[in-house]
């Protein structure tokens, strides 16, 4: 009961209502994020339908190993944060497990950013930035890489926010400012993290897989 009082925030009078509202709020936010990334992916789809050959040639230029390893890294981070969120919901007092899983999640997120950095370096060395001196002869390949740079950087910003949120959770939980059991902030942060993972799940076939079979 004292745990619940510590976590109760204005304007709620009741902790279970606060949890429900927080969960509802993050899902509404995630729905808006779906539309935001969906609009970008629709733009990609239209360009690809109009220039299939150029998109295949551009897709072949991306580094499939960086892309695949990063997908595996993010999927694994979704596993650890799911365990953290479900562990926090159980009454078995799994404080150490929850905090450890959150730490691993943040580290996997950082690993993704570092791998992405190496990939960006390689892309720049291969002159895959649209504009003067672009590597590929197909003009529409620049549309592909315009999408690539825009959407991967927006995704990286989302992931960085996620790492900051998870890092903050670890900090307040370690200092015992907030309890672990039934803490709604863990659940809400986990839901946001999963959405960032889902966005990448869709970016993977759009960016790395075109043109591999031809």
């Amino acid at each position, binding site marked *: 009961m004292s745990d619940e009082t510590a976590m109760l925030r204005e304007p709620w009078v009741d902790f279970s209502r606060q949890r429900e509202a927080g969960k*509802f709020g993050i899902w509404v936010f995630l*729905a808006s994020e779906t539309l935001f990334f*969906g609009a970008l992916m629709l733009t990609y789809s239209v360009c690809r339908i109009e220039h299939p050959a150029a998109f295949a040639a551009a897709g072949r230029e991306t580094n499939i190993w960086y892309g695949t390893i990063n997908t595996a890294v993010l*999927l694994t981070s979704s596993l650890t944060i799911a365990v953290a969120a479900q562990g926090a919901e159980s009454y*078995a007092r799994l404080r150490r497990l929850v905090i450890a899983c959150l730490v691993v999640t943040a580290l996997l997120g950082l690993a993704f950013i570092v791998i992405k950095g190496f990939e960006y370096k390689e892309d720049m060395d291969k002159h895959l930035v649209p504009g003067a001196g672009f590597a590929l002869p197909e003009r529409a390949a620049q549309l592909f890489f315009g999408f690539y740079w825009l959407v991967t950087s927006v995704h990286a910003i989302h992931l960085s926010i996620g790492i900051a949120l998870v890092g903050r959770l670890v900090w307040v939980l370690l200092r015992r400012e907030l309890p672990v059991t039934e803490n709604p902030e863990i659940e809400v942060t986990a839901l946001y993290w999963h959405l960032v993972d889902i966005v990448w799940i*869709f970016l993977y076939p759009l960016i790395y897989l075109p043109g*591999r*079979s*031809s």
Partner: protein
Amino acid sequence: MSEPDKSGLTVRRLWTRNLVIWAALMALLLLSLVSAYIPMGRITTASGIVIAIAKSMLVVLLFMELASARPLIRLAAMAGLVFLAAMFALTLSDILARL
């Protein structure tokens, strides 16, 4: 005495459940990687998208626990998808008709 046993059991159940989902996600990732190299024309492109949808369904329904969420939460999640579907359907019906 029974407390550590109980939490041990919970921990094992937690990991078993989620590791199975994770293994399925990894298998699907491998499948999409392999199928991208098999020349099947449009089916190759479609397989990448279909596998991505399958992976996201696993994450949304099981990791994000939408399968066991209350109707209000499911409605909020569906709202985004409905508007997304409208956006794709209206745009692509124009683009594809003009090819």
